[in-house]
C-alpha cells in the first residue's frame, strides 16, 4: 500500500495518540514524604510576616516561648485563646512556633466530628499505644482539639472516635495504608524556623 502524505499525517496523528496513552511507572509511595523531610520552611522577612499575620487572622501568631516544663494543657489554652479562626475557615493541623528546651514541637490536631463523645489521637509517636492522647471538645470552634509535643521526624497517626472507630485525618495531605484496611495520616516535623506549618 502506497503511503500518501495524507496517510503519513494519519500515522503521525495515531502515534501522537499512542504517546498520550503510554502508561508511566509508579514512583515509590514514600517519595513525597522523603522529599518533604529534606525541606526547611521558607523564612519570610519580618515585615512580610507581620503583613501576613495582619491579613490572615487564622495564622498562628508567634508565641513567646513558654518556660520549659509548662504543661501541654497550658499551651493548648493559650493557643486556643490567641489563634481563633475567622468565621467559615477552619484550621486543620498546625505546628505552633513553640519548641521546648527538649527540642519538642507543639502540634495541634483538629477533628470535625460533633457527633463523637470521645476522641483520642493514636500513632507512631507512642508506638500505637492504647493510651492515646485525649482530645478536648472546643464548643466554640465546633472541633475536637488535641495537642502533641513531638521531636523532629515523620509520624503516622489516626483518630480513635468513641473508643472504637479509627479514622484518618480527613485534611491530611499525606496518607499511608496501614495494611489492615485503614489509612493513617502522616505528620512531618522538619526544622522549625518560626513559621507556622499546616499539615
Amino acid at each position: 500500500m502506497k503511503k500518501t502524505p495524507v496517510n503519513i499525517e494519519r500515522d503521525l496523528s495515531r502515534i501522537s495518540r499512542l504517546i498520550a496513552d503510554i502508561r508511566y511507572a509508579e514512583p515509590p509511595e514514600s517519595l513525597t514524604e522523603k522529599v518533604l523531610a529534606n525541606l526547611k520552611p521558607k523564612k519570610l522577612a519580618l515585615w512580610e510576616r507581620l503583613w501576613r499575620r495582619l491579613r490572615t487572622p487564622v495564622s498562628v501568631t508567634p508565641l513567646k516561648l513558654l518556660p520549659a516544663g509548662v504543661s501541654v494543657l497550658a499551651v493548648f489554652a493559650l493557643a486556643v485563646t490567641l489563634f481563633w479562626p475567622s468565621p467559615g475557615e477552619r484550621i486543620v493541623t498546625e505546628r505552633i512556633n513553640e519548641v521546648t528546651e527538649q527540642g519538642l514541637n507543639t502540634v495541634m490536631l483538629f477533628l470535625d466530628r460533633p457527633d463523637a463523645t470521645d476522641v483520642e489521637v493514636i500513632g507512631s509517636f507512642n508506638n500505637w499505644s492504647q493510651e492515646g492522647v485525649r482530645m478536648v471538645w472546643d464548643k466554640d470552634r465546633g472541633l475536637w482539639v488535641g495537642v502533641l509535643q513531638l521531636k523532629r521526624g515523620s509520624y503516622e497517626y489516626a483518630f480513635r472516635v468513641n473508643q472504637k472507630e479509627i479514622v484518618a485525618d480527613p485534611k491530611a495531605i499525606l496518607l499511608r495504608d496501614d495494611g489492615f484496611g485503614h489509612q493513617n495520616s502522616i505528620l512531618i516535623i522538619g526544622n522549625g524556623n518560626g513559621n507556622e506549618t499546616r499539615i
Partner: protein
Amino acid sequence: MASGEETLVHEILSGDVNSYALLVKRYQKPIYNLMLRMTGSEQDAVDLTQEAFVKAYEKLEKFNPSAPFFPWLYTMGLNLARDFLRRARRSPIDSYESENSFSVEIDQDDRLADQIDGQDVMEGLQALPVEYREALLLRFHEGLSVSEVAGALGLSLSAAKMRIHRGLLKLRQLLEKQ
C-alpha cells in the same frame, strides 16, 4: 497554570512547606519517569527525582508564580539527569543528533502496522535521541503547549515545532521497521 498552583507557590514561599507536598504529588510521576528514561535505574531515578524536587524548592523564589510550574521543574530535572550522567561518566541513552544532521527518509511503500501499541511506541521513543523523545512526551503525554515545550527545552517556538514534527517522523520510521 494548573489549578491553584499560583496560590500554592505563595503559601510555600510564606513558610508552609507542606503545601509543597501537593506539587510533589502532582508531578512526581512524570519526573520519576523522566529519570527512569535517562538512567535506566530505579534507584538512580528515585534519588534524582528527590533531588529535582528539593532543588526546585530551594530555587522557588526565582520562579515566576504566574508561569506554569511543571516546565520549569522539568528543565531542572533534565539538567540534573544530564549532570548525573556526566559525573558518572555514563553515556546518555543515546547521542545527540543535531537538527541539521537529522533526516527522515519516508519510504512510500512502508506501512505502519495496525497492531502497533503503546509498548512499541515506548520502545521506539527510547531509541530516539533524548531531545526528540522528550519533546514528544512533553507535547503529547504531558499535554504541554508547543510554547511550553519550547520553554522546557530551551528552544524557540519554531524550533520546538520542528523538533516535535521531526520527532514524530523519526518515530514513525522506527516503528515501520518493527
